[in-house]
């Protein structure tokens, strides 16, 4: 290799490196909280809260400052599909706050709703306020607590929710006590008769089989909404019988215009929401006695 070619290669490498740098974003703030490392990154108009430096990680929270209502990630948009089963939820519980984009959108979309957010890490709440413009109020309440403890106490107080959104898993760590049949049963007991639960979980890895069986053991049949590359899958389950695809289509038509500002292609979801049991039904159900979710996830992916 002659020297000029080598030099050109180096320049090219540097260029590529700087381009990836832009794609990954500039880290504008890092925080070592009690539970995790939190990174705030910025690239162009996009501001993100991340929980690990790995690229392509599934759970991060971003906003586009030129269009702050627009939901940046597919999985966040897909979580709005719960509205197809219950279009006017009054009381909503959000488990795992992230940047707070999901509850903020719901609060704006449903002005009569009351939303409780449970987040274990107070640093996440503070950063959501500082960077994402999250403002809590009487209709949008944040409780800093472990979700399992919150759920048990809420059940004792007799609280009920019309919509529960579970989004507590980061790319690096799954709180294993939030992925057991007992926890799901406790969460189900918090639902009203029309109540719906939407969970953002894993589409790939062995955990898929275990988790599918666990959800089915508590809720019976559920709807499965996967991202194009299957890395995320959203479980939508209800206390009542699941509506037919025709009913879902009808609801989607009603919701379509209201959800447009958020970039949610709600009309595409009904036919993508699968009822197929596409998992290994012999996989063990995860319980409080047996819940090695992180180990199972590492086993193969």
């Amino acid at each position, binding site marked *: 290799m002659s020297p000029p070619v080598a030099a050109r290669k180096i320049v090219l490498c540097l260029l590529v490196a700087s381009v990836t740098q832009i794609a990954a974003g500039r880290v504008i703030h890092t925080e070592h909280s009690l539970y995790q490392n939190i990174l705030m990154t910025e690239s162009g108009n996009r501001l993100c809260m991340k929980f690990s430096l790995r690229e392509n990680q599934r759970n991060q929270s971003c906003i586009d400052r030129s269009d702050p209502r627009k939901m940046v990630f597919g999985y966040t948009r897909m979580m709005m599909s719960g509205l197809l089963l219950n279009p006017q939820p009054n009381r909503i519980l959000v488990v795992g706050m992230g940047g707070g984009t999901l509850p903020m959108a719901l609060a704006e979309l449903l002005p009569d709703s009351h939303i409780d957010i449970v987040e274990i890490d107070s640093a996440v709440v503070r950063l959501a306020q500082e960077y994402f413009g999250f403002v809590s109020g009487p209709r949008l309440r944040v409780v800093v607590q472990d979700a399992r403890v919150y759920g048990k*106490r809420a059940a*004792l107080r007799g609280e009920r929710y019309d919509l529960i959104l579970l989004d507590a898993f980061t790319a690096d760590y799954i709180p294993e*006590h939030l992925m057991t049949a007992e*926890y799901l049963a406790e969460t189900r007991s918090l639902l009203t008769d029309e109540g719906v639960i939407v969970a953002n979980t894993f589409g790939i890895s062995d955990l898929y089989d275990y988790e599918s069986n666990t959800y089915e053991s508590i809720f019976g049949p559920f709807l499965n909404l996967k991202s194009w590359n299957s890395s995320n899958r959203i479980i939508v389950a209800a206390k009542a019988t699941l509506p037919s695809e025709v009913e879902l289509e009808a609801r989607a038509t009603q919701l379509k215009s209201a959800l447009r500002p958020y970039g949610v292609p709600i009309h595409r979801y009904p036919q993508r929401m699968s009822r197929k049991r596409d998992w290994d039904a012999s996989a063990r159900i995860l319980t409080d*006695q*047996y819940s090695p979710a992180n180990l199972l996830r590492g086993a193969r992916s």
Partner: protein
Amino acid sequence: MRPMIINVLAFTGGFVIMAMELLGGRILAPYFGASIYVWGSIISVFMLALAFGYLLGGRLSLQRPSLRRFGLVFLIAAVLLYPLAIYADPLMQLVFTYVEDPRYGSLLAAALLFALPTVILGVISPYAVRLRVEHVDQSGSVAGRLYFVSTLGSALGTLATSFYFVLWFEINTIISLLTLTLVAMGALAWFADR
């Protein structure tokens, strides 16, 4: 033969202590969560229980120490450990109902669940030292070797439980296996005593 048996017993004691401490986090999580103070509660309870166990072990070693009595310590620990598999849930339910603050809830629950068996497991180390020391001038080296094997047991108990046991077994199965191990050790000491 006798020193070897005492080493094995000390090793197993260390193993069981840390395996239980690790399981403690899993047992408490459904009621008190996985917040950092839950681990704080568990570790504090184990440390305190071990501290009193060491005192008690030292005291007991003054009264006609024998391998047979040492075996009895393991049997008592087993008897105190096993009920966890049965009573943990109703007990935590009770604490959860009466103590609102999850910090003190987890501390109380950890104390009720783990303090007694851990005090008895704490007896093992000083008692083992007494059984193996024959002359004052070797006491330091005997103690050092026993700390070594029992802490080695602790390290292995931690690894085995967190890497494999929780993947293979239910929590109650692991508690049963640990109990059986303690019973086996107790029997070994009992029958090895001539």
